[in-house]
Structures are given as structure tokens and as C-alpha cells.
């Protein structure tokens, strides 16, 4: 196991975030698979309304839907959880108030439900609270869960999630809420346990959003892990490009289009490659953390089989990033 992989998987909580459409869920699922292959009991946690993870991680048979706060087993050492704030809140209130009937009365009260609908921030807070709860669960002396990989919401909302403890700690000075938020903040600001992994694409807007995301995460005092550039189109080394293009002139190769058409295809691909290289260089320049280049898989990352292949690619890319660094 390479150092980068080892250090990543030795954490307890990894937040995978980035602009919408960059492939956060695929990356989170692949990280889960990598950890589970090493016999680490891993929960890939999905936050938000999307339900993509079950489809990505399940094999031939569909997964049970789960109750919104208990990890569902997927395969050896791998679990998934679609975290439902309402379910997590009920669980929390039961732990706090200790009388289940009372909790039902509160949670079932229409007034309380309307209040919940309206009140901002509690979903983020209870989500982090539930992650803390999972992290702190013990099986004897050992942690019940080795690693939690969070498929976090897209940048803006993802940052709201990470900043909500600040808002609470600024206002609330006493009581259980203060105490519990202190615990949560203690976990997410502890770089030995928690890292944020930004995922991006070699395109202008995702690169820009990643820059802003990384700044905000630093300001929140949270650790940053390797920067994952997804969707990288592989470009071969072509030192003899000039000679190659000349050789295509007038050629008719097997069943391929004529040389002139091939030439325009190659030139198009090389121009795209230069654009891509430019964005990768920009990312590498401003990142102190390793830059990991994840290849674009032609068939996509939609099934468990494809996630396994993507996990292989992720592992190789993490190793390559280490060599670079």
C-alpha cells in the first residue's frame, strides 16, 4: 500500500465534495471499495436528496432501503447509509430524552414538524451529529466503523454543512447543544481523523470553484486531502507528433478513415489535451496537497463492476500522484 493511500484510509471521516456533476458519488463509492478491500469496515454515507449510492454499490440484488440512520451492509466490510436528517433527529432525541413515547409525541406533533420544515441549519447539524455518533461507536475497545466516506452535497451546500457548527458555537454558550456541537467540531477539525477531499474536472468553472472551496475549508480550520481531478482524458506521449502527422498524409490504414480525416481527428484530440493540461497545471500550481488525476471511463461509473474498475484506477492514480510529489 502506498503512503498516500495508507494515510487517506487511516482517517476516520472523509468528506468528498465539489461542484455538481464532477463525479462525487463515483469517487466516494470507489474510496469505500478501496477501504473495504483492505478489511476496513467502511460506511459510504450519502447526504442530500439524491439516491445514487445504493445503485453504485449494490451487486446483483437490490439493497434494503434502510431506516435513514443505520448502515446497510453491501458486501464484506462495506456498508452504505442514505442519511435522513429526520431519522437521525428522532434517534438523537431518543438518546437525549430517553422516553420513546415522549419523543414520538414531539416528533409527531404537527407544530414541531412545521417548525422543522422552516428552521434552517438543523439538517446540517444533525447530519454532522450522526457522523460523530457513528465515529464514536465502539465494538469493545475498537471503533465499530473504521472509515466513514461522506458523499457530501455540492460545494455551496457542502460548505454550509461544514460551517454550521461555527454558527451554533457562536451563539450557544451552554447546555447539551453546545456540548454536542463542541464534540462535532472537535472531530471535523481534527486533521488526524477528518479530511475534505475536493473533486474537480479539468474545466474552468470546476477549477475556479475548487479554488474557492479549498480557501473556505482552510478558513474553517478543516484539513484538506489530495485534490482529485476527475474525468481526465488519457493523452499518450507523442514525441514524434510532427513525423506522425506527416506519415498520415495520403495514408489508408486498415479500415480507418483516410489520412486527412485522421489528421484532423488527432489534431482535435491534441488541442483538447492542451486545454486539459492547462487546467491541470493551474490546479497543481496552487495545491500543496497531491493532485490526483482520475481517468474518464468510457462506459461511465454506474454499476458495482464499474465502481470496482474505477477503484483500481483511483488506487493507481493515488500511487502515481505520490511518485510525482
Amino acid at each position, binding site marked *: 500500500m502506498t503512503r498516500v493511500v495508507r494515510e487517506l484510509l487511516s482517517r476516520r471521516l472523509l468528506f468528498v465534495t465539489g*461542484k*455538481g*456533476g464532477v463525479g462525487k458519488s*463515483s469517487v466516494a463509492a470507489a474510496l469505500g471499495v478501496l477501504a473495504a478491500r483492505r478489511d476496513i469496515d467502511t460506511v459510504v454515507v450519502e447526504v*442530500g*436528496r*439524491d439516491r445514487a449510492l445504493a445503485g453504485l454499490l449494490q451487486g446483483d440484488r437490490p439493497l434494503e432501503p434502510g431506516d435513514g440512520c443505520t448502515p446497510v451492509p453491501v458486501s464484506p466490510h462495506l456498508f452504505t447509509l442514505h442519511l435522513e436528517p429526520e431519522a437521525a433527529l428522532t434517534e438523537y*432525541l431518543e438518546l*437525549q*430524552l430517553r422516553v420513546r413515547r415522549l419523543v414520538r*409525541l*414531539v416528533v409527531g*406533533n404537527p*407544530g*414541531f414538524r*412545521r417548525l422543522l420544515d*422552516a*428552521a*434552517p*441549519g438543523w439538517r*446540517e447539524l444533525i447530519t454532522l451529529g450522526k457522523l460523530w455518533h457513528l465515529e464514536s461507536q465502539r465494538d469493545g475497545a475498537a471503533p465499530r466503523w473504521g472509515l466513514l466516506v461522506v458523499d457530501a452535497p*455540492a460545494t*455551496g*451546500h457542502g460548505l*454550509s454543512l461544514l460551517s*454550521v457548527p461555527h*454558527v451554533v458555537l*457562536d*451563539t*450557544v454558550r*451552554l*447546555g*447539551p*447543544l453546545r456540548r454536542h456541537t463542541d464534540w462535532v467540531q472537535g472531530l471535523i477539525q481534527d486533521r488526524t481523523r477528518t479530511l475534505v477531499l475536493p473533486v474537480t*474536472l479539468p474545466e*474552468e*468553472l470546476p477549477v*475556479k*470553484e475548487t479554488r474557492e472551496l479549498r480557501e473556505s475549508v482552510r478558513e474553517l480550520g478543516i484539513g484538506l486531502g489530495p485534490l482529485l481531478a476527475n474525468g481526465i482524458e488519457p*493523452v*499518450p506521449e*507523442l*514525441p*514524434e507528433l510532427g*513525423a*506522425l502527422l506527416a*506519415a498520415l498524409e495520403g*495514408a489508408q*490504414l*486498415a479500415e*480507418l*478513415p483516410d489520412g486527412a*480525416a485522421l489528421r484532423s481527428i*488527432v489534431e*482535435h484530440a491534441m*488541442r*483538447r489535451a492542451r486545454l486539459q493540461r492547462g487546467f491541470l497545471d493551474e490546479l497543481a500550481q496552487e495545491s500543496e496537497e497531491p493532485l490526483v488525476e482520475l481517468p474518464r471511463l*468510457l462506459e461511465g*461509473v*454506474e454499476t458495482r463492476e464499474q465502481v470496482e474498475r474505477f477503484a483500481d484506477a483511483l488506487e493507481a492514480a493515488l500511487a502515481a500522484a505520490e511518485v510525482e510529489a
Partner: protein
Amino acid sequence: MSGAWLDRRVLVTVGTGGVGKTTVAAALGLAAARRGKNVLVLTIDPARRLADALGVTGLDHEVREIPRAVLESAGVPGGAALSAMMLDTKRTFDELLDRYAPDPEARERILENPIYRNLTDALAGSREYSAMEKLYQLHSEGKYDLIVLDTPPASHALDFLEAPRRLTGFLDSQLLRLLFLPARAMGRTGFRLFRLGSNMLLPLVERITGIEFLRMVSEFLLAFESLWEGVGERAREIDKLLRDPATGFLLVVGPDPVQRRRAAEFWERLDQEEIHLAGMVVNRIHDWPAGHAPPALDEAARAKAIDQLAARLDVPTARASATALIDLILRQAALARRDQGLGATLGHELPLDARDVRVIPLFAEDVHALEGLGRMAERLVAEADRV
């Protein structure tokens, strides 16, 4: 039908993140301006180079006109105009406060509330709501022939359609007053309905959250309540505008399998909402030279192509270079095969008239430069370019 999209008063580009919605919105704006219209593009977060190329560097929450010189070089005739504005959720809400807050004190109270300051973005549907609010406001001013709205990327289809309803629906002001004002303020009905609330609920919640937090939340909700009557009326008007026949929704789709699947989910939601889809833009597909079908070579044919190319090369690394180049070409062919006929397939699935589907190739040059944007604009209105 060519250009019929551009005859509408409002075009809304929708789709998941990462499909190039913002660029498509800008290109639509340019295409309409080229046809002599006065156009405004409302965008979420334009690429810096796109803003630079359009001569509106540092675009922010103000309407900015694209300079005349830029328009001329982009083929926009005199009399037509193109403007752009970047949506800013927090600023839009601040403006709502200015308009609807009952008094300056209430306004200050909200502005200073930590929840408002930090979590406006997290408030369910606030980004989407603010986009709709701004669209409605500018549309009412009637200054533009066409407004193109680039919506926030919604991974979970059409949050923005629900946003006005969610925002207004859940802040039932009567309820909040009953929950948070002292008991004496309650009427008899309220008292009966929320007896549980007043007797038991709050002390319980308070036991966990502490009184300060509860006060902060209640202040936030009460203060916001003052806005709600105005906003509620507004939400109904916005809903009407979105369903107006002069408003068209354009679904932007990318060729990746995930993006294709999400597009179908998106369309389903639109359909449920009884929103009519005006068309679809399939963006960034991999082209293959006209007159050929992208080939799939078997191992023998691949080896043959490599041999033939290597034989034509007079360099020491002939075989390695030829292999790399042929594999590069085959990768492009595989991408083109994947994307081939995608416009027709997706259009058929939705179902959309073939005339309402436009296919935009992955350009080799920067679409954020004026020239690239112009090329995309042409593809968006050209009738001949259908796959």
C-alpha cells in the same frame, strides 16, 4: 422552426451540473442578439474567461451591457443589445428585505441574525427562489425581448420549481407566532391547536438546544415572517410566468452515461410539474468526420493499422509512436460511437420533435472565447445540424 426558441420571452436552461448550461445560456443570448433582439442573460456563476471575452470582467449582481465593440465583432447588428447579470442569493434576499421589511428595525434584526448571515444559502430552496425572484422582477420591467435564465445546477431535478412553494408553504406565519410569542398573544383556537406546543414542546426543545439557540431561531423566523406575505404573492406570479406559453424550458444534456440517466429523471419531473419542454441541447458530443461511421477495429485490424503506419515512419520509435497514435484514434472512435445518434435517441425517449433537439459538438477551441461562443450560437439555431 429555426430560431423559434428565440421567439419566446423567457428561456430557462435546466440540467444537472457539469453539462455546460451556463455556456449554452450565454450562446443562446448571443444568438438572439444576432437576430436583432434586446437580450438579458441571468447567470449563476459565469466562467471568468467568458465574462472577460464578453467585456464584462468582474460581472456581479448588477445588469451589465456587453460593450458595443464586442457585440459588433460578434456579429450583433445595431439596435440589438446583450446584457448579463450574475445572480447572488444573499443580495437578492437583502433586496427582498429592503422591499418588504415592515420597518428598518426589523430589517436590521434580520441582517444581524447569525442564521441569516451564514445560512441563507442553506435555507431550503433559497438559491432557486432568488433566481426566480430576479427573473420575475426583470421580466416585469418589460425592458427585454428575451431573458435567458441559467438555473442553479440541480442534481435532484427542478428544486427551483418547488422552491417558491416550499419557501412560502412552510413558513406559516400564524403557526410561528403561536409557537414563539408568549401565551397571552394566542387566540383561543390557536391555544387549542397548539396546546402541546405551548405546554410541552418548547420546554422539551429548549432542554436540548438551550434558550439562546431557540431565541436565535425564533428571531430569524419571526423576522422573516414579515417578508412572507409579499413573497407568497410573488411566488404565485412566478409560478404563472413559468407556465406561460411564452416561456420555454431547454434541457441541457451531456453525453456521459450518468448525465443521460439524470436527463431522463429531469424530464420526468418536468412532466409531473406540467412544465412543457421547448427543446433539448445535447452538448459536448464527440464528432467523427462526416462520411464515415466511427469504426470499431478488432485486434487484427488494429495491428494492421499500426504496422502500416509504422512502415511509413522513419524514426527510431516508429512502432511505439504508431501504437500510441492508433490507440488515440481508436479512443476517439469509441467516444464518437458512444455519442453517435445520441440526439435522436434522447429526443425520441423524451419524446421531443427532432426539430427541437440541437446537438453541439465538443469544440477543440475554448468556448469561452468570443469565437467559440459564436460557433455554439450558430449550432443552437441552425436547422441543418441534426444528428
